[in-house]
């Protein structure tokens, strides 16, 4: 029998025979009691032996952890039951009483009880708190091999070599030992009557059922965790399933298969499975409902003795002749695949679901793969093909099978797939749009198949290949136990090979340039050409990995999420409380699938790795950003920066003066070092700073540090070498003051001060030296006075031959005045960025200040940044362009009959909109349409727009060499394939106009660039004239924009005209005043109208037209808005109210309703005749009828027109 592919061994120990096993409920620990009298405590996750407990004599057969306390219990062949504390690692006490081997020991789930089964044919219950025996159950007439508490009810099951299983009721015992006062006399009577006393009159524990069915001794019995079921294993090689009710218990079925004694059996805690082990060296799993064998695992030589289940995790342990093995029945890694923003995965119910990362929603099930493989085997891998919307699923069942399934278009529920292609393979991956590769280890070949599942190509993979992975388009990665190789399918050749052992998973980066090879304990990052970039080792198992968009690998181990940069720098991001499989990183969220195949989102702090990444990429701006916005501090990042040679950056993070000082020295930032040294003010610090400053040549700092250290000698020498005579003499004074003659002498030498030297010699009574000095320097008088003083004459003295007196060299350059040229290390680009930004901010602030100080003057109309930019309500549109529903359809004759008509021709045929005709290149029909719709007659201004639309209509696809490229037509109806509905794309849609062009126009107004403004608004009109929109609402919006543009062009033209007028003659002045008044009439945004009003008010005021100025001021105050403007208005209003008269009479009635003629810029009072332009709606005096509109310069004023069409409802 081959070992089942599904049983995954997680841990194995080598020891003598293991007889008892217990899982720790929370920690990854397992207790193993051995035949050799030892009890071992293992960490099965790390694979390490934590402790050994050796106080039993002879084999230890039973162990159990206490569910909550740091205790465990053991029982052995020395008849003893021992209770241990694993924290203090001591045996707390021993319970004596059994008269033969103790087979099993168990803690009660909640009460302070221990249950023991013994070869002395008794089952005993002990209270471990008062260390007493509280109950002895007799009845079995052979060894009791096993006794267990029911997980929730007051029941015990026992198995004995007397071939029976017994169920005991211990409710009496519980009542007796819990709150005895609450039991009334009646209760006691009732209980005494109800329960039959056993032969010893014991009512605490009574036999409820005796289950007979095994033909030999029974070795083990277990309760089902939730159902009223029991399972037992016996020497008759059978595993029996029993059911019980309140009144009876009976045998349900038998699982046959073990061919030697069955040692133990238990229920799977979560699934409908029974697990059993036996001396036939097998572990078997049985279907609880069908009682059929699901899978089995065989060891070569070791007989199994015991099996235990972890209470929570899907984990089991079995003890055998040479140790224990901890294993899982199945992989818990959910099969999944990612495409762009979607995750496809298979749930525990074998449903295919998808998860949208953008919306964070889970789809309903799309498919049910219930029939895939065997019911107990989850699918292993999933590969997704976006082009065909198909998935490839592999399952290890039946030695590996794959299925190719097309996903339904919409997720409607767990439907059974209809068109399924399947075959034999352990791995299957899509390698191209219409190809996938399957690997069959039996035939040792990789088949490349097309979507109809027929083989198009066969490849021999390298010997020993265990798995295949996608290797980039058209390539495969072959995984062998020692190597990974990259293979080009089309060229059928191996492109590269890399020695990496034990690779289990391959994770590609989002851009497909890098790939991470995961093995149990290693992550190797390679390029797409399989060149190794970095590798790292983890002591804890690596479970999964995914790439950040920036090229950082995030990987999960059993208990951490970690990251690795391409250069191998790695670190911990967060801890995990349960194992998850990472699938995607997006910002601060890591998406993962947990072991129940539920998508989960883990919050992470990506700051650290982003910072390191920015550092590696030298992206200083981003680093700056991170430093500013996040609290990225801590020793680790500092030491990282230091290690990487970025002390100047580390400096930014540190507050501690000592560390800052060290870092500043390291990066040569003397300023900071100096500052910190002052703060610290320790001799050692000063001396280090001095050394560093000296190395830099920064002698001013050096001087300061010497001063601080009172290092006079060095200070003197420094002054000497820098030529600072003044300070040197001060040093001499200090020396004199200090009475330090050596120092004084030294200074005198440095200064070449002979008198001082002589004086000093005299002071210390060294007259010979004083005399000699005086003599040698030719100071005869002084020499004689010395002689006199000591009472000697010249001839009494023998002098050595005198040479030239010592001359102190003087520095030629007075370097003390400034520092020597300093090492130009100064600032890194990072610091520059930091400084630069500060500078910019300052400037800005300065600019603001300037701004604030500037006076409000007419020419600077628009310098104001108007804060109240909100939409003006109640647009008075005047005469709107009317939309008529008659279709002026221009039919375009189709081209030559031989060839078909091009799509451009179709466009013209499909649409009555001028823009579509323009895109189709049919300019003449487009012009006809515009002529009819809005009376367009002067097309020259529209030429750029026509060509713009036309240029955007086609693409050129290079095809056969030597022939012109294929022309394709760009549609706005992207999803349309019906040739009668295809329509061209029109650039600069309404949204762009509204959000870009219009804002540009407003900006031009604000910043007083009126010529630009006129051009921009004209362009807006032209753009809208040749355009399409997608709804009636947008038609309305377009009309609004047309009206806005008209008003702005009108207003700006008036103001421009006024500025060209010289104010030299009274007529011109009058006209200027009028124009400035008219400037306030067009319906501009309120903020802009305030500017117009302000200008008009000031201008009128300046020319003593107080009446007009007053009316402008009133209008401004009525409009509200910027406080500064209102302040001005109030002032002027106050002044004007004293004398509200106009000095110059102008044609402007502030109280009448009127429009401005766009040609003559004179008022058209309501009631007087006017004509309007069919496109812009601008008003003119009647004499302008028939000429070209002054606003958009396209249409004829007063021309008959049906109205501009931008939208055809049927098109959408």
């Amino acid at each position, binding site marked *: 029998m081959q070992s089942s592919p599904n049983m995954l061994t997680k841990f194995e120990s080598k020891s003598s025979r293991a007889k008892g096993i217990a899982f720790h409920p929370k920690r990854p620990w397992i207790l193993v009691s051995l035949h050799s009298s030892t009890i071992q405590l293992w960490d099965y996750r790390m694979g390490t032996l934590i402790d050994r407990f050796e106080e039993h004599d002879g084999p230890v057969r039973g162990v159990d952890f206490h569910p909550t306390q740091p205790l465990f219990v053991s029982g052995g062949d020395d008849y003893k039951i021992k209770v241990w504390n694993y924290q203090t690692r001591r045996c707390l006490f021993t319970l004596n009483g059994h008269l033969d081997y103790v087979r099993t020991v168990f803690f009660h789930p909640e009460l302070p009880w221990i249950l023991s089964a013994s070869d002395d044919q008794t089952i005993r219950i002990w209270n471990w708190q008062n260390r007493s025996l509280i109950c002895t159950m007799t009845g079995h007439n052979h060894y009791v091999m096993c006794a267990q508490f029911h997980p929730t009810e007051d029941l015990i099951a026992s198995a004995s070599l007397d071939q029976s299983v017994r169920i005991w009721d211990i409710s009496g015992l519980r009542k007796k030992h819990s709150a005895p006062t609450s039991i009334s006399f009646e209760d006691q009577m009732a209980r005494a009557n109800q329960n039959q006393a056993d032969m010893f009159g014991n009512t605490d524990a009574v036999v409820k059922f005796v289950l007979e069915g095994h033909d030999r001794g029974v070795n083990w019995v277990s309760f089902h965790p939730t159902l009223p079921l029991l399972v037992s294993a016996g020497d008759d090689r059978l595993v029996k399933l029993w059911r019980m009710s309140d009144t009876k218990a009976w045998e349900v079925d038998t699982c046959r298969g073990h061919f030697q004694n069955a040692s133990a059996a238990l229920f799977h805690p979560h699934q409908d499975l029974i697990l059993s082990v036996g001396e036939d060296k097998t572990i078997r799993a049985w279907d609880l409902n069908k009682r059929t064998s699901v899978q089995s695992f065989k060891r070569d030589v070791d007989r199994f003795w015991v099996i235990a289940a972890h209470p929570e995790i899907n984990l089991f342990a079995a003890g055998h002749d040479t140790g224990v093995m901890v294993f899982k029945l199945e992989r818990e890694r959910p099969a999944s695949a990612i495409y762009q923003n979607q995750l496809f995965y298979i749930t525990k119910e074998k449903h295919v679901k998808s998860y949208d990362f953008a919306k964070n929603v889970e789809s309903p099930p799309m498919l049910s793969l219930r029939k895939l493989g065997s019911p107990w085997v989850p699918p292993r891998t999933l590969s997704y093909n976006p*082009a065909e919307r198909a998935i490839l699923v592999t399952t290890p069942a039946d030695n590996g099978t794959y299925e190719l399934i097309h996903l339904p278009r919409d997720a409607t529920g767990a439907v059974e797939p209809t068109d399924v292609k399947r075959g034999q393979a352990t791995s299957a991956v899509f390698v191209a749009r219409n190809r996938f590769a399957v690997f069959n280890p039996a035939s040792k070949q990789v088949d490349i198949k097309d979507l109809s599942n027929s083989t198009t190509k066969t490849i021999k993979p390298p010997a020993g290949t265990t798995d295949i992975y996608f290797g980039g388009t058209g390539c495969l990665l072959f995984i062998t136990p020692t190597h990974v190789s990259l293979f080009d399918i089309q060229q059928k050749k191996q492109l590269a090979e890399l020695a990496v052992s034990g690779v289990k998973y391959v994770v590609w980066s989002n851009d497909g340039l890098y790939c991470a090879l995961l093995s149990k304990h290693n992550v190797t990052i390679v390029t797409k050409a399989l060149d190794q970039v970095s590798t790292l080792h983890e002591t804890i198992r690596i479970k999964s990995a995914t790439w950040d968009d920036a090229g950082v690998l995030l990987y999960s181990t059993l208990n951490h999420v970690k990251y690795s940069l391409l250069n191998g720098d790695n670190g911990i991001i967060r801890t995990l409380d349960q194992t998850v499989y990472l699938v995607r990183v997006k910002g601060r969220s890591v998406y993962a699938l947990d072991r129940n195949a539920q998508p989960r989102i883990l919050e992470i702090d990506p700051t650290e790795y982003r910072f390191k990444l920015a550092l590696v990429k030298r992206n200083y701006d981003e680093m700056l950003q991170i430093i500013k916005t996040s609290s990225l501090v801590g020793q680790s990042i500092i030491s990282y920066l230091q290690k990487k040679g970025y002390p100047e950056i580390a400096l930014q993070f540190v507050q501690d003066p000592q560390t800052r000082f060290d870092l500043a020295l390291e990066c040569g930032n003397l300023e900071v070092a100096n500052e910190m040294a002052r703060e610290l003010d320790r001799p050692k610090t000063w001396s280090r700073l001095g050394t560093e400053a000296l190395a830099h040549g920064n002698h001013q700092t050096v001087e300061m540090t010497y001063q601080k250290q009172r290092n006079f000698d060095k200070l003197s020498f420094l002054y000497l070498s820098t030529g600072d005579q003044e300070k040197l003499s001060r040093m001499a004074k200090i020396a004199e003051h200090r009475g330090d003659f050596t120092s004084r002498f030294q200074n005198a030498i440095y200064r070449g001060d002979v008198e001082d030297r002589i004086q000093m010699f005299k002071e210390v009574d060294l007259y010979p030296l004083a005399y000699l000095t005086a003599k040698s320097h030719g100071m005869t008088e002084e020499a004689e006075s010395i002689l006199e003083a000591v009472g000697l004459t010249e001839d009494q003295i023998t002098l050595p031959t005198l040479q030239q007196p010592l001359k102190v060299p003087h520095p030629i350059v007075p370097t003390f005045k400034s520092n020597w040229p300093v090492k130009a290390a100064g600032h890194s680009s990072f610091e520059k960025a930091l400084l630069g930004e500060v500078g910019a901010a300052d400037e800005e602030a300065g600019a603001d200040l300037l701004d604030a100080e500037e006076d409000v003057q007419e020419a600077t109309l628009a310098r104001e940044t108007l804060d109240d930019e909100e939409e003006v309500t109640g647009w008075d549109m005047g005469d709107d362009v009317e939309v008529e529903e008659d279709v002026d359809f221009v039919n375009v004759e189709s081209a030559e009959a031989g060839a078909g008509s091009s799509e451009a021709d179709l466009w013209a045929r499909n649409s009555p909109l001028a823009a579509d005709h323009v895109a189709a290149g049919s300019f003449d029909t487009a012009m006809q349409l515009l002529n009819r719709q809005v009376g367009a007659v002067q097309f020259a201004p529209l030429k750029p727009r026509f060509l713009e639309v036309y240029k955007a209509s086609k693409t*050129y696809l290079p095809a*056969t*060499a*030597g*022939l012109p490229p*294929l022309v394709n037509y760009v549609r706005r109806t992207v999803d349309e394939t019906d040739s009668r509905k295809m329509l061209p794309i029109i650039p600069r849609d309404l949204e762009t106009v509204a959000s870009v062009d219009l804002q540009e126009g407003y900006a031009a107004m604000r910043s007083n660039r009126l010529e630009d403004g006129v051009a921009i608004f004209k362009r807006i009109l032209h753009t809208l004239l040749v355009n399409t929109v997608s709804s009636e609402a947008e038609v309305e919006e377009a009309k609004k924009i047309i009206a806005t543009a008209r008003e702005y062009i009108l207003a700006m033209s008036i103001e421009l005209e006024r500025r060209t007028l010289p104010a030299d003659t009274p007529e011109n002045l009058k006209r200027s005043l009028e124009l400035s008044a008219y400037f306030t009439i067009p319906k501009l945004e309120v903020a802009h109208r305030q500017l117009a009003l302000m200008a008009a008010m000031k201008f009128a005021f300046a020319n003593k037209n107080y009446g007009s100025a007053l009316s402008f001021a009133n209008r401004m105050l009525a409009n509200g808005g910027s406080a500064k403007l209102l302040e001005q208005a109030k002032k002027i209003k106050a002044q004007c109210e004293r004398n509200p008269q106009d000095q110059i009479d102008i044609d402007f009635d502030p109280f009448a309703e009127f429009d401005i003629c766009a040609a003559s810029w004179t008022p058209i009072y309501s009631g007087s005749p006017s004509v309007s332009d069919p496109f812009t709606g601008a008003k003119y005096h009647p004499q302008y009828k028939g000429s070209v509109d002054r606003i958009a310069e396209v249409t004829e004023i007063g021309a008959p027109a049906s109205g501009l069409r931008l939208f055809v409802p049927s098109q959408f």
Partner: protein
Amino acid sequence: MDPFSVEGELLNIHSAFHSGSYQNVIDFDTTTLSPENQLPAQVLQLRAQIALGQYDESLQASDDIPDLSAVKALALHSAGKSDAALQLAQELAENYPENSTVQVLAGTVLQAQGHSEEALALLSKHQNSLEAVSLTVQIQLQQNRTDLAIKEVQAAKRWAQDSLLINVAESWVGMRVGGEKYQSAFYVYEELASAPGTSAPLSIVGQAVAEIHLGRLPELIANSIVLNVLAGKNTEELESQLQQVDPSHALLVDIQEKSEFFDTAAAKFSAKVAS
């Protein structure tokens, strides 16, 4: 065995040619090829040279071998000697209508000079020549007969599903049909662009074009003019750039034509009152 097939030794040079990596074709080491493949390889190399504007070698090609004369015809055409090219192509079409190189190259010349029907007639004689199919498809598309092109591709897919040329031809058709086919065409180009054997300018351009049609707007030279107009940017610079690279590019010619057309069309309209 078809030497261009997946198993054949000409596969790589063939793929390189059709994905536009002409320099790779010219640099291809042909000495190791078997004798019967030498001629097709030489033809491909000459065509690559023509594509790069190096006509000399091709113009001196011998007239004895029809394959090489066909190359010569193409070279003549590309060098601007249209009449001589047309004459030679027509002669070849008459004398060697069964030769697949003649079919493709003479067909190219005929089509390029506007003799589409002749070209199609010649190409229809092909015997499972993928190049002939792809050329036919292109001609049909240029004639706006998408329906016929679809049929042609469908027929060819039955016997050559895996071929690069057919995949590309299918995506040409897809770009005309639109809708979901845009996406499939995009996948084809994306795959070509990312596979090491076929990653070349043509594949990338194709990918970009498909993206434009899909309404995604990335950037690329000839297409980035279109693109920049769509994105509202200035295109003069690009246009002058294109003017230098390829003054006769269809886009420029077309725009020039339309500009003139505009002026003539606009001249028909005028305001009644001169302003």
